[in-house]
């Protein structure tokens, strides 16, 4: 199928990030928060201004995911137009939390079908100096879920919206 436009629902959203070996994996998620940049605002208003004025500073991002806890074996990540090939959330996150190696991360929003090139995607392809870090992985055995948090590696380029896969 060709890339589609228009509205969609969450069942077509997928989340991918590197595992500890630098291989991109599909991770099962039930919520994703903070998909996008938020800029510091410097309020530069003077008494004499009729209206408050601001300028944007550094952008920041705190990307938090939750989902079902799962220790299934790692799978090769899905590509364009393919259904997610889920690796176990524990299998992936247990290996990357607290690490200081930049990670590839992508949030893919399929438009009424499995995401494919040309549809919205947010993230970054990692290099030695660019990418996300995982800084928190908390498990709740009471409901069989996890929560994980991602921040940017120092000096990294900013993640961005695009329409191509992050590899």
């Amino acid at each position, binding site marked *: 199928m060709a890339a589609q436009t228009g509205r969609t629902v969450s069942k077509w959203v997928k989340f991918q990030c590197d595992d500890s070996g630098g291989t991109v994996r599909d991770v099962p998620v039930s919520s994703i928060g903070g998909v996008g940049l938020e800029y510091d605002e410097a309020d530069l208003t003077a008494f004499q201004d009729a209206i408050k004025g601001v300028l944007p500073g550094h952008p920041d991002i705190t990307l938090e995911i939750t989902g079902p806890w799962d220790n299934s074996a790692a799978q090769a990540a899905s590509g364009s137009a393919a259904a997610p090939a889920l690796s176990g959330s524990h299998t992936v996150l*247990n290996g990357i939390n607290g690490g200081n190696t930049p990670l590839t991360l992508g949030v893919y929003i399929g438009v009424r079908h499995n995401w494919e090139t040309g549809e919205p995607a947010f993230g970054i392809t990692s290099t030695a100096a660019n990418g996300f870090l995982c*800084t928190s992985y908390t*498990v709740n055995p009471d409901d069989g879920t996890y*929560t994980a948090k991602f921040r940017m*590696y120092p*000096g990294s380029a*900013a993640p961005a919206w695009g329409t191509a896969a992050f590899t």
Partner: protein
Amino acid sequence: MATGQTVKKWTRVYVNGYDMSGYTRSIGELQWEFDEAELTTLSDGVKGYMANQGNVSVGALNGVMDDTAVSGLHTVAAGLPGTPATVMVAQGIRAEPANGDPMFTGYCEIKNYKAEEDGGAAVVTMEFDQFSTTGLINYARPWGFIAHAKGAETAANTAVGIDDNGAASALGGYMVYQVFAGDGTATLKIQDAATNTNPSFADLSGCTTGSIDCSSVKHGLVAIGVTATVRQYIRWQIVLGTATTVTFALGFVRGQ
């Protein structure tokens, strides 16, 4: 070892050599977070952070008030606040925890123990704090695997081991043990091997309890050097001294 999703009825909680699973209603959240040190500079395109020190806690144990002699939750836990405890949360995968299943562990201070009422039920909540400074180890990772699921052993292990990593590593690790019952002295150990056959296994240097008297509960963490080589396959081992049977659980966390 099984894989996949699971539910809480297959979670088991061991505290200081006591199996609290039969008294526990919930445990967690199992916290593993890192302080985020912001290292953003003027010319950076986006704010950047690095993981600093880790924060590990077992969260809170909520259970039924039970003063059964010796092993009841109230009997075991009422006097624990203000002291550290060795905790293992063994996560069975749609079944009782088995060798190779995931395990979360810590040597955490206990903040409180409070009796409460919940819909008519007499319950208690015990909150765990972070690692005790009296037992800090050079590892921030609390997730490992069960090398020996809770059970009794009467002889040395000649079985093959577990491949938890797919390869050897050179980042050390640590073991956690909970001895629930026994009738004398024994030594619990972790062994590793490059090939998964009985004769290939050898003691992982330093990863041993030494001889302990298992006729009373025992528990603890034993860490090896952070650059120690740990071969691909891991298994439990026991050397019986005066004991003829020991009931224990053993976990291992590979360094990262």
